[in-house]
């Protein structure tokens, strides 16, 4: 058991640290949940890509550096420690890309991955529907076979950043007679296609952070089906595992937030225990991730443990932000644009984002069922 990093790992970390120090914007970019902020963040993705830091863990041929998982984690720690902007490309890079690498055709990988890496295409997730949230098997949007492809119809909702994104990925029912999660197919479609209407939905603070997507007989060629027809559920599962587990929420983000919390706290007796617990939680999540990475590098898949991660990091994120809000006292309510807002309103913005954690990527109630049934082996819920 050891936590020492190789000379190559440390050299890579130094390279990343040096570049970030020189290139991270001095002023925070406007919120990526707004049109201008989205554009600024897309520009930042291009800057990252030009320096070779957009998708460091990907193969070189698609714009990556082919670094190990350990180096990727170190990259993430440096990235967040430097206060670098949130990744507007994250849905594509962390959720779709692993699925493209695993199930995509060579043609699809070449067509989509480089543009995703460079920020030319920003992707939105189109999983949820009005009648299907955590229960993906309840999906009703249809895919109808036509010559050369499919016609998609239906409604998707809660699609993060779909208001400004270029493409979306999601599941559609391609066999209406098959039961529940059978008969689903995974499709990729451009958000400016004929028949697509995107209606932004204001987040809890009014920012258009997500959207509804209406599809009215939208043509999608066979070449934009990801994986086998009717196998959408299985294909999607590899993506949701990434989402709850390693990739979407690397520990770097919580380490940096805990560090900022400790700085805001400054040693006062006030809220001492909550600050300490948040810092310990960030450390625990980092170490647990190294444990997972060790297993993955030894050839074991990430299993239902990713549900434990999801419950843990989402609750840690809220606890950490609640502690910060309490420390700020009456200033906690001041958001970006308020001249008196501490840290430019970063804490309340982060707090609002954290509140969504136990809801998205499969609610924490669903994750607890998964933990009880698949980790502890308890009998399944009646369904």
């Amino acid at each position, binding site marked *: *058991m*050891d*936590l*020492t*990093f*190789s000379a190559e*790992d440390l050299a890579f970390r130094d390279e990343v640290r040096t570049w970030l120090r020189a290139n991270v914007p001095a002023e925070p970019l406007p919120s990526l949940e707004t049109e201008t902020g989205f554009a600024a963040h897309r520009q930042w993705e291009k800057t990252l890509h030009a320096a070779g830091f957009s998708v460091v863990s990907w193969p070189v041929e698609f714009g990556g550096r082919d670094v190990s998982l*350990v180096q990727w984690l170190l990259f993430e720690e440096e990235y967040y420690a430097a206060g670098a902007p949130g990744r507007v490309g994250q849905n594509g890079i962390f959720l779709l890309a692993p699925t493209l690498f695993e199930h995509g055709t060579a043609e699809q990988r070449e067509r989509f991955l480089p543009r995703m890496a460079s920020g030319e295409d920003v992707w939105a997730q189109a999983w949820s529907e009005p009648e299907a949230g955590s229960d993906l098997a309840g999906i009703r949007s249809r895919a109808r076979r036509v010559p050369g492809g499919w016609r998609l119809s239906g409604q998707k909702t809660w699609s993060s950043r779909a208001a400004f994104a270029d493409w979306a990925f999601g599941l559609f029912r391609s066999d209406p007679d098959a039961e529940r999660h059978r008969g689903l197919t995974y499709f990729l479609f451009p958000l400016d296609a004929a028949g697509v209407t995107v209606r932004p939905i204001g987040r809890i603070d009014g920012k258009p952070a997500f959207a509804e997507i209406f599809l009215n007989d939208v043509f999608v060629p066979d070449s934009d089906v990801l994986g086998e027809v009717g196998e959408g559920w299985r294909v999607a599962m590899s993506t949701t595992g990434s989402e709850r587990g390693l990739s979407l929420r690397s520990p770097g983000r919580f*380490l940096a937030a*805990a*560090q900022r919390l*400790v700085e805001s*706290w*400054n*040693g006062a007796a006030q809220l*001492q*225990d909550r*600050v*300490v*617990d948040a*810092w*310990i*939680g*960030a*450390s*625990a*999540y*980092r*170490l*647990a991730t*190294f*444990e997972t*990475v*060790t*297993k993955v590098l*030894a050839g074991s898949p990430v299993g239902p*443990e990713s549900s*434990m991660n999801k*419950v*843990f990091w989402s609750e840690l994120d809220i606890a950490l932000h609640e502690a910060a809000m309490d420390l700020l006292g009456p200033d906690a309510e001041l958001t970006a644009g308020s001249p008196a807002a501490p840290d430019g309103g970063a804490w309340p913005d982060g707090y609002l984002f954290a509140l969504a954690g136990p809801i998205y990527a499969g609610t924490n*109630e669903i*994750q*607890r*069922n998964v*933990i*009880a*049934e698949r*980790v*502890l*082996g*308890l*009998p*399944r*819920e*009646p369904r």
Partner: protein
Amino acid sequence: MRFTRTTEQQDMAEALRALFDAGDGAAIARSWAAGDAAPWRRVWAQLGEMGLCGVAVPERFGGLGLGPVELVTCLEELGRAGLPGPCVESIAVVPALLADTAAAERWLPGIASGNAVGTATFTEHVPRALDADAADAVFQCDGERATVAERPDAVAQHSIDPARRLWTIESAGEPVPGAQVAEAFDLGALGCAAQLLGIGQRLLDMSTRYVQERHQFGRPVGRFQAVKHHLANVAVRLEFARPLVHGACLAEPRHRSRDISAAKIAASDAAYFAGRIALQVHGAIGYTAEHDLHLWSTKATALHAAWGTTTWHRRRVAAALAAGETAPVGA
């Protein structure tokens, strides 16, 4: 970076688990609580033969001379087995206390072989000697000084865990020059954290089994979501306490105390919570002395406050953070 047990460390854990699975930890705890030490002595002798009583004792004194990862691996298994006795004291604390002293020659070979047993007090946080009546040496630590006595005058106290036989020591001992009191205390807290992890895991295992056997409303209670979520919460807490205990084993010397405190807080809270939830999902049967559950749940309660309360350990972490020691645990 390879943050998981090595094959040797895993083999050690499995050998211990096999030994305890073949025995009956609950029966040993009950006999120990009743004052019959013979069954415990037999297990301790087996541990001695396996070398595990001396896992942290240098080889020149007959020990295995292994590091903190192996030490916590052993203590985690002893916790899981529900083994009573001064395990943390004899296996972790006394070897650390005596590391650089002339007294090492006198005590460590016997302790390593399992023929002798040691226990210890620390004025502020471990005021009473665990199982002093069964120990060959009682070390009393105060500030930076330590003394040792072989059969001190002692007054029996009664722990919430009947298998913890506590004694207030009333006579002084012989000084132990050069004793490493601070290091020994920290190793006690780390060992206690490891023991708590094992206790918490056992409480979760017992609960998981019980809710599958117990039927109400025509189905196993483990099928109800409310019960599932209780146990899922326990699993999550234990899952994220364990890497902190392992991380503290690898800590940089300058962060060691801070990291051990973080580990003790997380393991204490997780095991205590596991005990509370275990009682809830067992219902009334778990509240009885007939059922074995209390052998683990009361120990979790006792150890929650032993080797520094979580409040005290949080203060220690807070002081380190305030002093700028914000590098993550294990760094």
